[in-house]
């Protein structure tokens, strides 16, 4: 439009506040993280050029690899737990039976809005050895020997945390899928039902292809969400026992702010970014091939 071309400077002025704030406090930190990762630095005294040494140390650091493995468990559990469960809930709630059942939607989405700190503290008590619900229930049905310190067992703790993550975020994917399903003409879904395509079969052949794009977007969201896990672990186990629940973010945090290794912490940050984007690209690639 003619009139708008004359107002280029207005366009610029309108966009500048957003671009400046976003660049300064979101993009610039990422770039400076890459920069700091080449230094040996305690955060206060002058920086020492360290070249690639931080990265070499990182590759040889067993705890780092353990933390990445735990991050991958989180991603795996989230993608394989939250997305199918969310899809199941969405399909159920989109059916005739629950069209008016707003209460289900309300309750399933509820954990998403609660602060992760509150969720972590609640589940900490839930898993408590002495009075926690899990152990009390096991003792009540005579499985006393199964009762244990769930978060204190290095072999189990990470999976125990994964359950909390799935509990907290499934509702988010339910709402996303519900939104997508509501754009699908109900005749399509009903016709599929009449043709005998019910249950998993119907879901896989009819529903999934129709909302495939939404599922792709949800998988990306889910991966980046799972890699962001920090608050939950920081509160529930702080990476312990003996690093068994360490993830990239908690390891970065302790290395930087407790051990005062700013350069090394920045190298971990950079590695997290690279791995995150690597996983997102990889998942897109896999999903695209699956689509064909």
């Amino acid at each position, binding site marked *: 439009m003619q009139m*708008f071309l004359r107002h280029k400077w*207005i*366009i610029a002025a*309108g*966009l500048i506040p*957003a*671009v400046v*704030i*976003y660049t*300064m*406090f*979101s993009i*610039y*930190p*990422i770039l400076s*993280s890459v920069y*700091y990762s080449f230094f040996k630095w305690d955060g206060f005294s002058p920086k020492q050029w360290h070249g690639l040494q931080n990265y070499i140390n990182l590759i040889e650091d067993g705890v780092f690899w353990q933390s990445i493995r735990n991050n991958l468990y989180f991603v795996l559990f989230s993608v394989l737990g939250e997305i199918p469960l969310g899809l199941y809930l969405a399909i*159920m709630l989109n059916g005739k039976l629950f069209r008016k059942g707003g209460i*289900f*939607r*309300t309750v*399933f*989405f*509820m954990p998403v*809005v*609660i*602060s992760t*700190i509150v969720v972590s*503290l*609640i589940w900490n*008590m*839930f898993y*408590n050895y002495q*009075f926690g*619900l899990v152990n*009390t229930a096991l003792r009540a049905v005579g499985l006393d020997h199964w009762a244990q310190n769930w978060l204190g067992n290095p072999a189990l703790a990470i999976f125990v945390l994964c359950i909390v993550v799935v*509990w907290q975020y499934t509702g988010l994917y339910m*709402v*996303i899928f519900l*939104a997508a399903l509501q754009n699908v003409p109900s005749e399509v879904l009903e016709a599929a039902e009449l043709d005998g395509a019910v249950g998993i079969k119907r879901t896989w052949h009819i529903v999934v292809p129709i909302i495939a794009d*939404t599922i*792709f*977007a*949800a998988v990306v969201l889910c991966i*980046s969400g799972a*890699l*962001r896990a*920090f608050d939950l672990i*920081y*509160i529930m186990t702080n990476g312990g026992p003996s690093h068994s629940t360490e993830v990239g*973010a908690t390891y*970065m*945090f302790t290395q*930087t702010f407790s051990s005062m290794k*700013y350069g090394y912490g*920045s190298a971990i*940050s950079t590695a*997290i*970014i690279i791995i995150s*984007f690597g996983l997102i690209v990889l998942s897109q690639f896999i999903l695209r091939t699956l689509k064909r």
Partner: protein
Amino acid sequence: MLLLLLVINIYPLLWMILNSLKTERELSTNPFGVAREPVWSNYIEAWKVAKLGPYLVNSIIVTLSAVVLTLLVGALAAFFLSRFEFKSKGFLLVYFTFGMLIPIHATLVPLFIEMRSLNLMDNRLTLLLPYTAFNLPITIFILAGFMNAFPKEVEEAGIMDGCSVMGIFGRLILPMLTPALATAFIINFLNNWNEFSFALVLINDGALKTLPLGLANFAGQYNRSYTLQMAGLTIVLVPTLLFYLSVQKYLTAGMTAGAVKG
């Protein structure tokens, strides 16, 4: 199956609320049932020892100021990105999308250093800017997505009436944008209200701590007094739930309308 999942969703919260009214002794002997004699004093004590009052005030100030700034700046940016054609538009859209994928914890160290060198540590502005920066992408996408559906005639009518560009924005677009602004407001509010890691790293002054930070400290100090912890958590949980229940219609409706069209 659905009912079972419903119970799994709601039971942990209910369990905590029920137990917050017990004595320590009753919690260990009767962790399932309702308290025989509700100990309301848990709440009074939790409120006092956890210093929930001051933390609440801090959280309200930080959250609301960041939400207002994000919506103002975000709506303006979304307006130009959605209703105008210009060369860098495609680039800017990708640039902002990128923000939704950034692992925010990777920015903790550099943000800490940046804030320290800008002398912005430990004051009321400290959290405002990062909160705004990290909520801008989703805000811009919700608002721009919603605006894309407005017909072109909106601007044409505005020009006919002799409106300036900002007049079109203020008098025509903003009023139409209300539903999307409501959704963006809620999402921003919840994000900021619940935010923990930036507050953990950037705020050391006890008087400026926000609610999640205060709660984490309290739980750390009183880690043997579970009923007190539960009472404190309930005090924080219940208002969040009430807020959510009162706005959830707009939240899910808004998300359906355009927030998450991938």
